[in-house]
C-alpha cells in the first residue's frame, strides 16, 4: 500500500533500497484506476512512468500538479474548453525545480475553470468529489490536488492560491496546504489568473512534506519580475521545535460567521496551543470584513486583463464558424469560456471601465493598503494569527453553484493573506459532527514561513487526523 505513505516516508524507503519509485508510481496508478472514476481528481493522469535520471532528494517519486501549471510536452487545460487542446511547450519554474530535484509526475489535477471558484464545480471536465463524502465538494480551486492527496491518488501535489485555492480545499479534504509569501515561488509557467495575488504552493498529507516541497520550489527566478530576491532556507529545520512563549493572535470576530463545529474546533485548538506554551489573545482586524469585496474587485480586474489573450489566434480553442475577425474573437470566447469565467471577466471589465474605475478599482487598491496595515500592526506584536480556514465543513455539490456571491463568501478567511502577500497554511483541525475535516489557518508576516512551520509542526504533533484519511 505504497500510495498511503507520505513523501518523506517514501524518500526514506527508496533511500534504504526497500522500495523503487516505479513501484510507487504503479501503486498510485492502480489506486487512480480504482478511485478516479468516482472522485474525478485528475484531468489527465499518465500511464507511463517517465524515469528521472537526475539524482535528487525526491528520488524519482511521482507528484501531481494542478492543471494550470506547465509540464513540457503534457496538456495544460486549466479545466477550460479554451485550452482543451493545448500542449505545454516549457516547464513552469516550480515544475523544473521539482524535476531538477528528482521528481517525476503522475498527472494533472482538476480545478475550477482557470482557478476561478471555490468548489471545483466550474471545471469543463466535471466536478471533483470530496473523498470523505462524495456528495460534497472538495473545495477549490485546487480541489483535484487536495482530493487526490486525501484519497491516495497522489502522494503530494502542487496547487495555486489566489484567494484561498490551496488552503480552502486542503481544509475541506483534511490535508495540509500552504500558500507561501507572494514572490517566494516563481509564477513563471503558472497560467495567470490575478497576477498580484497568484502563488504556487504544496498540498500534502503532513507538515514535513510541505517543508520538503517548499525547500525545492522557492527561490528567485529572473523569469518572474515579481519574484523575491530572498535566500532559500531549509524549512525542515523549523519542524519539531518548541513554540513555548509564542504570541498568537486569534481573529475571534471570524468565529461569529462560523458553524458550531468550527467554533468548537477553534476552542480546542486554542487549548492545544496554550498547552504548548503559546500565549493566545484575541486580535482585531478592522478592515478584514471588507476583504471579500476588495478581492472580488481586484481579482476580476486582473483576470479580465490576463484572459484577454484567449482570442483563438495563437493557441487554444477557436470557434468553427464566424464571418469576420471580430466575430471569431467573440464566438471563440463565448464558446470557450464557462459561465463563471465570463462573469469574472465581465466584473473586471466593468470595474475598470471608464466612469467606474475610481468608484471600484481605485478604492479597492486603497482598501488593500488598509488591510495590509492592519496586519503590519499586528505582526509587530504577534508571531502569528490563527483563524478557521473556512466557515463550515465541505458543502454539498450544487449547494452554492447557482449563487456566486455565497460561493465568494466561502473564501472570507483565506482572502486577506492574498491581498496582503503574507504566507498562510491550513492544517487539519479535527472533524465535524458529520465526520468531515475542518482546518486551522495560521498566518505570519511576509517571509516568516519559519514561524508557520514551527507552529504547524508543533500543533500537528499534538493533534492530527492522518489515520482517518479516506485511504482504504
Amino acid at each position, binding site marked *: 500500500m505504497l500510495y498511503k505513505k507520505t513523501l518523506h516516508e517514501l524518500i526514506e524507503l527508496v533511500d534504504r533500497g526497500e522500495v523503487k519509485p516505479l513501484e510507487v508510481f504503479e501503486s498510485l496508478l492502480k489506486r487512480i484506476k480504482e478511485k478516479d472514476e468516482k472522485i474525478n481528481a485528475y484531468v489527465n493522469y499518465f500511464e507511463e512512468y517517465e524515469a528521472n535520471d537526475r539524482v535528487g532528494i525526491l528520488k524519482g517519486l511521482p507528484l501531481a500538479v494542478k492543471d494550470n501549471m506547465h509540464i513540457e510536452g503534457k496538456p495544460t487545460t486549466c479545466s477550460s474548453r479554451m485550452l482543451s487542446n493545448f500542449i505545454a511547450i516549457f516547464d513552469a519554474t516550480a515544475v523544473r525545480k521539482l524535476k531538477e530535484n528528482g521528481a517525476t509526475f503522475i498527472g494533472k489535477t482538476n480545478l475550477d475553470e482557470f482557478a476561478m471558484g471555490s468548489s471545483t464545480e466550474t471545471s469543463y471536465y466535471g466536478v471533483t468529489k470530496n473523498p470523505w463524502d462524495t456528495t460534497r465538494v472538495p473545495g477549490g480551486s485546487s480541489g483535484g490536488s487536495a482530493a487526490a492527496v486525501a484519497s491516495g491518488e497522489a502522494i503530494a501535489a502542487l496547487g495555486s492560491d489566489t484567494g484561498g485555492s490551496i488552503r480552502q480545499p486542503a481544509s475541506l479534504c483534511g490535508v495540509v496546504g500552504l500558500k507561501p509569501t507572494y514572490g517566494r515561488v516563481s509564477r513563471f509557467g503558472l497560467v495567470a489568473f490575478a497576477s498580484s495575488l497568484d502563488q504556487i504552493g504544496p498540498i500534502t498529507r503532513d507538515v514535513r512534506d510541505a517543508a520538503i516541497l517548499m525547500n525545492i520550489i522557492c527561490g528567485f527566478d529572473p523569469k518572474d519580475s515579481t519574484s523575491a530576491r530572498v535566500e532559500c532556507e531549509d524549512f525542515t529545520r523549523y519542524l519539531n521545535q518548541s513554540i513555548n512563549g509564542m504570541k498568537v493572535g486569534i481573529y475571534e470576530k471570524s468565529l461569529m460567521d462560523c458553524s458550531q463545529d468550527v467554533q468548537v474546533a477553534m476552542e480546542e485548538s486554542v487549548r492545544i496551543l496554550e498547552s504548548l506554551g503559546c500565549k493566545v489573545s484575541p486580535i482585531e482586524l478592522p478592515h478584514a470584513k471588507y476583504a471579500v469585496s476588495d478581492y472580488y474587485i481586484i481579482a476580476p480586474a486582473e483576470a479580465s486583463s490576463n484572459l484577454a489573450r484567449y482570442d*483563438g489566434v495563437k493557441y487554444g480553442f477557436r470557434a468553427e464558424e464566424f464571418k469576420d475577425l471580430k466575430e471569431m474573437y467573440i464566438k471563440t470566447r463565448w464558446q470557450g469560456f464557462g459561465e463563471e469565467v465570463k462573469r469574472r471577466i465581465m466584473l473586471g471589465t466593468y470595474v475598470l471601465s471608464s466612469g467606474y474605475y475610481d468608484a471600484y478599482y481605485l478604492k479597492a487598491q486603497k482598501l488593500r493598503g488598509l488591510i495590509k496595515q492592519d496586519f503590519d500592526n499586528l505582526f509587530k506584536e504577534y508571531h502569528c494569527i490563527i483563524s478557521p480556514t473556512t466557515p463550515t465543513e465541505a458543502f454539498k455539490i450544487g449547494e452554492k453553484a447557482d449563487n456566486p456571491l455565497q460561493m465568494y463568501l466561502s473564501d472570507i478567511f483565506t482572502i486577506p493573506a492574498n491581498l496582503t502577500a503574507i504566507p498562510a497554511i491550513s492544517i487539519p483541525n479535527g472533524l465535524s459532527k458529520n465526520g468531515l475535516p475542518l482546518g486551522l489557518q495560521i498566518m505570519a508576516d511576509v517571509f516568516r514561513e519559519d514561524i508557520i512551520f514551527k507552529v504547524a509542526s508543533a500543533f500537528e504533533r499534538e493533534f492530527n487526523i492522518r489515520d482517518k484519511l479516506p485511504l482504504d
Partner: protein
Amino acid sequence: MVEKEEVQRVAQLALLEIEPEQMDKFSRQFNEILEYMEEINELDLSQCEAAFHITELKNVFREDKVEPSYNRDVILKNAPDSEDGAFRVPKVIER
C-alpha cells in the same frame, strides 16, 4: 442597479456574448455582487494611498541579453490555424 443594456455594453467591451435567455439571471447575479461590494463605500478612503502592488519591488530590470527562444514549429503546433510559419486569421483588410 446596472441595467441590462449596460451589462450588454460591458460584454461587448470584453468581446463576450451573453445568451439572450441567460441575460435575466446573469444581470441579477451581476447586480447582487455589485450591491454587496457597495459596503466599501462605508469607508472614507480619501486620505489613503492606493497599494497597486503589495510587494516593495520597483522597476525590476534585467540584462538585455540574447537567449535562445522556443522553437517556432513547436509553438505553431498549438495554433488553431497557421501557414508558412505564421498564425493565420480571417482577412482583416477590405480591398
